[in-house]
């Protein structure tokens, strides 16, 4: 069956896209679709290694997407849950899930359509193959946005991020900043009212037609933490029984995919078992955040500083950022030593920005973007150390 399909594509469809065919210039687009269906049977060229590892870029990227699925599914349910909590309506599990799915899926579709559209256009213009990098970015973008964000903003931000964040640098593998965070930062600075405040986090929150129960606030724990270090309340204005556990499980308002630390940990487990994401970055990132949290606890000058260090790990976008975004291999430090430094500083600076500047409640985004810029510098010094060692040896020989 699959053989017959492949033969049909090779013999009847592909010739249209080959040199001289009428759709010649769309070959990259065709190629992307065909190689998605079939990993091509190219063999090694006879010089160099004849056997190759079974892994390729598609598999790598798909693994990351799979790792995000728990956060996506939970995000759908939680979107509905927060909505019904705020409105006070009765609901079932399926009600919540379906409500959320209808809110979240359009974000995913728009993100992929806009991003892949740009990728295909650039591939056709530059006559290169479509790289798989956006498969991951396309899922990261909706998961790190508030559910109420208008779809056109998602499209605009995605297009901006792919063009300015990636293609101008030469495409996948060449970008300096994480593409999804570039999109988020674009929205954060261009449309701040849609990226902060209390209403955007709750499904229907921006929509006047939805009636909210008395006492409903919708404020995230991060927003509440500027005034108090405990006794946080949920979307209905009721205090959480155990706010750490609620935040860990993800029963709190927030961006679509970032609320449940548990769901993110399942993703992290997938990434670490397959070895696709760097445990060095995750580990040192968590360490950095915890150390900063402890330092603030010691200082304790305002309520936010008194938020327990372990609480910082489960609220806001920290877990999501450190697992899925800081570990982006292209924008992270590339050397082993560099990764420890890079990860640690993301955690450390992320919590610092979060607490010092409540105007930017999500410090993790800025910390990762800042460290993206710094990563080549870190690697530079790691390499310099290696070069120095070698030069010392050469000097010893010459002497």
């Amino acid at each position: 069956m699959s053989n017959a399909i492949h033969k049909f594509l090779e013999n009847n469809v592909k010739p249209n896209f080959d040199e001289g065919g009428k759709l010649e210039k769309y070959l990259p687009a065709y190629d992307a679709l065909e190689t998605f269906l079939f990993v091509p049977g190219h063999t090694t060229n006879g010089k160099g290694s004849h056997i190759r590892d079974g892994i390729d870029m598609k598999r790598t990227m798909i693994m990351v997407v799979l790792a995000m699925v728990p956060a996506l599914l939970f995000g759908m349910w939680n979107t509905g849950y927060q909505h019904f909590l705020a409105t006070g309506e009765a609901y079932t599990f399926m009600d919540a899930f379906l409500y959320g799915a209808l809110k979240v899926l359009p974000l995913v579709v728009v993100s992929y359509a806009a991003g892949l559209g740009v990728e295909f256009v650039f591939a056709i213009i530059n006559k290169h193959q479509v790289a798989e990098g956006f498969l991951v970015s396309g899922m990261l973008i909706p998961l790190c946005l508030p559910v109420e964000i208008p779809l056109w903003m998602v499209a605009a931000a995605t297009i901006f991020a792919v063009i300015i964040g990636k293609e101008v640098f030469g495409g996948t593998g060449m970008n300096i900043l994480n593409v999804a965070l570039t999109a988020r930062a674009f929205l954060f600075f261009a449309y701040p009212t849609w990226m902060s405040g209390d209403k955007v986090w709750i499904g229907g929150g921006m929509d006047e037609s939805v009636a909210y129960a008395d006492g409903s606030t919708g404020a995230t724990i991060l927003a509440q933490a500027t005034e108090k270090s405990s006794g946080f309340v949920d979307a209905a204005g009721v205090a959480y029984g155990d706010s750490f556990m609620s935040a860990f499980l993800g029963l709190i308002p927030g961006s679509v995919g970032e609320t449940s630390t548990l769901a993110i940990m399942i993703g992290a487990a997938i990434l670490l078992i397959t070895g696709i994401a760097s445990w060095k970055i995750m580990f040192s990132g968590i360490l950095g955040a915890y150390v900063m949290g402890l330092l603030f606890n010691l200082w304790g000058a305002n309520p936010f500083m008194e938020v327990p260090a372990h609480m910082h790990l489960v609220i806001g976008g920290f877990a999501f950022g450190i697992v899925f975004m800081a570990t982006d291999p292209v924008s992270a430090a590339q050397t082993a030593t560099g990764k420890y430094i890079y990860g640690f500083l993301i955690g450390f600076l992320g919590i610092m920005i979060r607490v010092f500047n409540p105007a930017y409640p999500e410090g993790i985004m800025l910390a990762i973007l800042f460290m993206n810029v710094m990563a080549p510098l870190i690697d530079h010094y790691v390499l310099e150390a290696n070069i120095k060692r070698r030069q010392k040896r050469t000097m010893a020989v010459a002497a």
Partner: protein
Amino acid sequence: MSKVLRIKKGANIKLVGGAEKILADVPMPSTVAVKPTDFEGTTPKLVVKVGDEVKAGSTLYYNKDNDQIKFTSPVSGEVAEVKRGAKRVIEEIVIVADKEIKYEDFGASNPTSESREAIIEKLCKSGLWPFIKQRPYDVIAKPNDTPKAIFISAFDSAPLAPDNDYILDGKSATFQMGVDALAKLAEVHLTVNSAAKADEAFLQAKNVILHFIEGPHPAGNVGVQIHHFAPISKGEVVWTIKPQDVLAIGKLFETGKYDASRTVAVSGAQIKTPKYFRTIQGVSMKTLLEGNLKEGNNRIISGNVLTGDKIGAEGYLGFYDYQVTVIPEGGEAQMFGWITPNPGKFSISRALVSWLSPNKQYNLDANMNGEERPFVVTEEYDKVFPFDIYPVQLVKAIMVDDIELMENLGIYEVAPEDFALCETVCTSKIPTQTIVRNGLAMLREEMS
């Protein structure tokens, strides 16, 4: 036993079709070939023409850039053909072999009583000199250089590699004579695999500095051993040679003849009975593999699956090769191949299920398993690259022709074969060995 160096980085790719320790004789092939393409960075200048009679050890051609380096015939017979490829590059010099080999006489002698110059002269004249290669650049050594050391790796850790302990068994005296000759040229370092029981030819060798190493491939690569025991700095030269070639040098001094016979491991999934064969340098695959090939689309490789050359059923064994590997060619597209678990495919990542069965022997074909992409995944090469060198950064420096950076990052210490596993495991399917080869060639040109 002296200190053992333990290598952690690397990978043993276990393949089906390992050669059994049975030694069979192959009839004298009707044709053998010398392939100038085996020798990187040389330009052949022919001294024979089609129809000439040659003996074993007669010069066929010399290197245009250094006429001291001669390439000789492994057998006696008649030059039948000079095969040229694109741009008239000489690819093969084919010789129809006599049934009984007649030898040029270079005179038997005891190397310990000969001068350095006389030994070099003898090795050059007989055509054995090209066995000695040098780092940097991974090319034939220059006879007038003074290397800081000569390194011999007693074992080959590549997939399905021939077992030198088996091949050299009982040949201690000849091996020692070869070592004695080399010891006149420079200090000889011999590295033995401490995990296996090495042959006494190695363990009892005199006139050498013995090292012990242990770990997965590429622990047997001489480059890894040099890096850890006597790293090459800019301006230094280290020579390298393989054990069977040392044996050939030993035989030259014992008998005065260029005896090109060698033991070759014939292995791989597509071989009916994988075992060792006593044959000759440049043997034709027609003779060597006759009746031993399985049906199917086969890829015949002179050498191992990581660094060898695809030669085809009409091809000839390479000058530096002691192994022929035959694997299925493959070439079928796989539907949704990027998500199927593919238990039959090897991977050092755990994104396929193969990591669950670490002792499985694979029947791998020559599929790329994906398409070439820019570098994305990091620290992947590092897992299989036991050097204090940053492999990806070095490869990138070569890609952008940054000579200073290449030097700084340690290009003088590496050869393409050291990057073979990097190339194998690369998610982005980057042709790393070719890039390193081009970088070395460019640097060599710049520096000369």
